[in-house]
């Protein structure tokens, strides 16, 4: 449904992205930020789904600066080890340049929201703090809350976490909710990665359905 394209960041770096256009006039733009496995099959389906909802959706390849066009379907130990290598030289600051490039591309569809999973959830929060021309953010189980709790969002934001996540302490989610009472901080009876439909052992359909409906409603409200 979508197409593989390239986009340019403000520092001249050219990265890959997967973009899907909706039928008819877009109701806004959505930037989809990947998990650590890159813009793989599942992320492509998420991007396509946003287009079906009427948004111009784009998923930038966030690890291109380290490993060009990296994407993996290997959720096993081999894929994990590869990720470990990639992340050794990954830069959070440069990553926001790539997000910004994706926002500019998605802005063709109108106001832009950002959403992402795991790694992408944390990036969504950081992007909401940076602004980057975004209008709303909806992040999923972004780990390392102590590393971003002080970064106050400049735009409306909501976050989704699982109460059985062994990588994100529920107490930290509670602190985030207390710190930002106006943000939608939602908790589901699920573990980490509960929205990845390509991983049946992780996928929690009921929780993901509920969270995804919230994201859709949130973006419809803030990107209209």
């Amino acid at each position: 449904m979508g197409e593989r394209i390239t986009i340019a960041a403000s520092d001249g770096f050219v990265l890959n992205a997967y973009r899907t256009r909706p039928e008819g006039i877009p109701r806004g733009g959505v930037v989809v930020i990947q998990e650590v496995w890159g813009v793989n099959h599942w992320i492509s389906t998420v991007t396509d789904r946003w287009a079906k909802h009427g948004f111009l959706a784009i998923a930038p390849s966030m690890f291109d600066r380290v490993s060009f066009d990296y994407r993996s379907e290997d959720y096993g130990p081999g894929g994990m080890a590869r990720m470990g290598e990639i992340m050794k030289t990954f830069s959070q600051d440069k990553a926001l340049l790539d997000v910004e490039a994706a926002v500019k591309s998605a802005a063709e569809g109108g106001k832009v929201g950002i959403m992402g999973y795991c790694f992408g959830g944390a990036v969504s929060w950081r992007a909401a703090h940076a602004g980057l021309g975004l209008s709303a953010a909806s992040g999923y189980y972004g780990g390392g809350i102590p590393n971003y709790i002080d970064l106050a969002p400049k735009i409306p934001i909501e976050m989704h976490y699982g109460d059985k996540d062994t990588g994100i302490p529920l107490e930290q989610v509670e602190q985030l909710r207390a710190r930002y009472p106006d943000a939608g901080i939602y908790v589901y009876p699920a573990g980490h990665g509960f929205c990845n439909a390509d991983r049946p052992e992780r996928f929690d359909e009921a929780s993901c359905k509920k969270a995804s409906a919230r994201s859709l409603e949130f973006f419809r409200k803030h990107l209209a």
Partner: protein
Amino acid sequence: MLSLEQHFSYAEAALADAVAAPLSARKARLVAALIDALIDRCFDAGRTGAEDILAFRTKLLDSSPALASVVALAAARPDGPQLRLDVESLRPGVYAGLSEAQYMVSLYNGSTIPRLFVLFPDGTRQNAPDLLAGALDALRKR
């Protein structure tokens, strides 16, 4: 009144919850309190050979450092051991024992992971779920 075995089952279920959520101080606190109470239930069940409940507790805690630590934690004295969520740096390539979620989160957080520790007054610390499991195991085998 629950039987001793039912008390054990309840504590073991609470421990399983704490192990499944290894970063939850709330769940860890509950297990510590249950273990402390379970010691009393063991005395109530009889055949301890101890003169009184205090003597029984002292003898038991002397026999197991893990039990002694957990009981001290349950006492919640300001100068006693405390539960603390600390960030730990991972040595490159050393990921054994991490859940997948912990590993993934560590990747984009500078190779650090949060862990729930029992922090002792002398500055030493022990992984909380491991300590609780060791204490309950010691009580089972007493």
